[in-house]
């Protein structure tokens, strides 16, 4: 899987775990081919590091977000305890 143009345009902070992971794998595949220039390789590598940080952040998140469907709206869910 190659890195596509519009993948590199989406801000990394808004990527889901799966999206970030897929882009990271794509970068590794591209680097392993070794067909990039040194400058391109370094740029890709840095983006790869940022993606890895994003994945790590998502995994370390302590708060599970819970909402409740009430009619047509999503409201915050308050557990009874």
């Amino acid at each position, binding site marked *: 899987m190659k890195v596509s143009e519009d993948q590199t345009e989406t801000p990394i902070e808004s990527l889901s775990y799966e999206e970030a992971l897929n882009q990271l794998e794509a970068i590794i595949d591209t680097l392993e081919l070794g067909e990039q220039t040194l400058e391109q390789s370094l740029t890709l590598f840095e983006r*790869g590091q940022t993606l*890895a940080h994003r994945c*790590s952040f998502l*995994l370390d998140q302590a708060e*599970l977000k819970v909402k409740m*469907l009430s009619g047509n709206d*999503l409201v915050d869910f308050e*557990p009874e305890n």
Partner: protein
Amino acid sequence: MRQIPLLEFSLWSVAELTHYLRDLFDSDETLQDLWVHGEISNLARPSSGHLYFTLKDNISALKCVMWRNSVARLQFIPQEGQAVEAHGSISIYEAGGQYQLYSDKIRPAGEGALYQEFILLKTRLEAEGLFDPSRKRPVPRFPRLIGIVTSPTGAALRDILNTLRRRYPAAKAILAPSPVQGEQAPIGLIAAIQDLNLLVQPDVILLARGGGSIEDLWVFNDQQLAYAIAASQAPIISGIGHETDFTIADFVSDLRAPTPTAAAELATPDRLDLKKDLEDIVVRLNRSLQAATSAKYWQIERLQNRLVQRSPMAFVHSSRQRIDDLTSQIDRSMEHLNKIRSAGLTGAQQHLWSLNPLSIMKRGYAVVTRLDGTLVYSISQVKSGNSLDVRLQDGKFPVTVQNGATIEESIGKKNEGF
């Protein structure tokens, strides 16, 4: 078995008679495997752990006993006055002279009929293809939105949320609340599933309820609910009751879990596993950069080598070497030539030397001359009585051809000689 005695009247002991009756009961097949329904009374559970009770209806009573290990398997607590169905065999407790139902299973009354209904519905929906494995959709690996259909107050929700928090807090959980028992439950459950699909579009839906009796779980056998599950765009994981509870909803769902907690586990990856995977991926990322840069290094080296081979200095070096080569070739040739030359002179010298008369005379040949020095080289110049000189290498002396000597001609060519 006690033999009938030959006497007109038979006299049994109590033990013999009781034993006879017991054998009768034990050999009757009908009495070995039956269900009896009645009302519980005189319920007792002594410290032994065994259960003693009487099943009665308005006409008769039946004493029952259930041993401790069967009691442990009971899925409900029998109550005084409760209508139940008991399964077991009839035999006689000899010491007390009592026939009893030895029971291994009890269920609340009416459950037998319910079970039949369940089997009928299951068979019909299965024939319609609702349970086909090919209909089942895969559950996404990294769900972003997880829909939960369950009671907002039950333990099932609490267990699910705890599991999600532990394993995959990156996901968002959306609760669509619904009663999970009673008459309103099927409608509520169907609406919850439809609302989630319409308004939220989750990646997966958990349909869950904690443990309960067959009647409690009966709502999940509702036919309309089965169709709603089948029609759901999001795949549904069911987690209803306990390990051994199976409802129609379990069969229609895309994935069945034994409990609500297990349903949450099936829906999510464990972040501890993901962290380990991420570590491996980062190692691969670093290695891939190394691979990319070392590929460049090799390219540079190869180019450098080629450059060195084609440089002017390289040309000078190779020319120098060529000159050296040629020079030594010349040296060798000169040497060779000299050798030949010196060898040549010596040979000619030797040749010349062998033509020198003195050297011939050294070999013993004599030169014969007349007294006036003219050379005698043929017998035609000689007559008997002639005086001649014989010259050897170191001097000469006179000779006279004898008078009357025969002068012989030699055999062979005349002109043979030098």
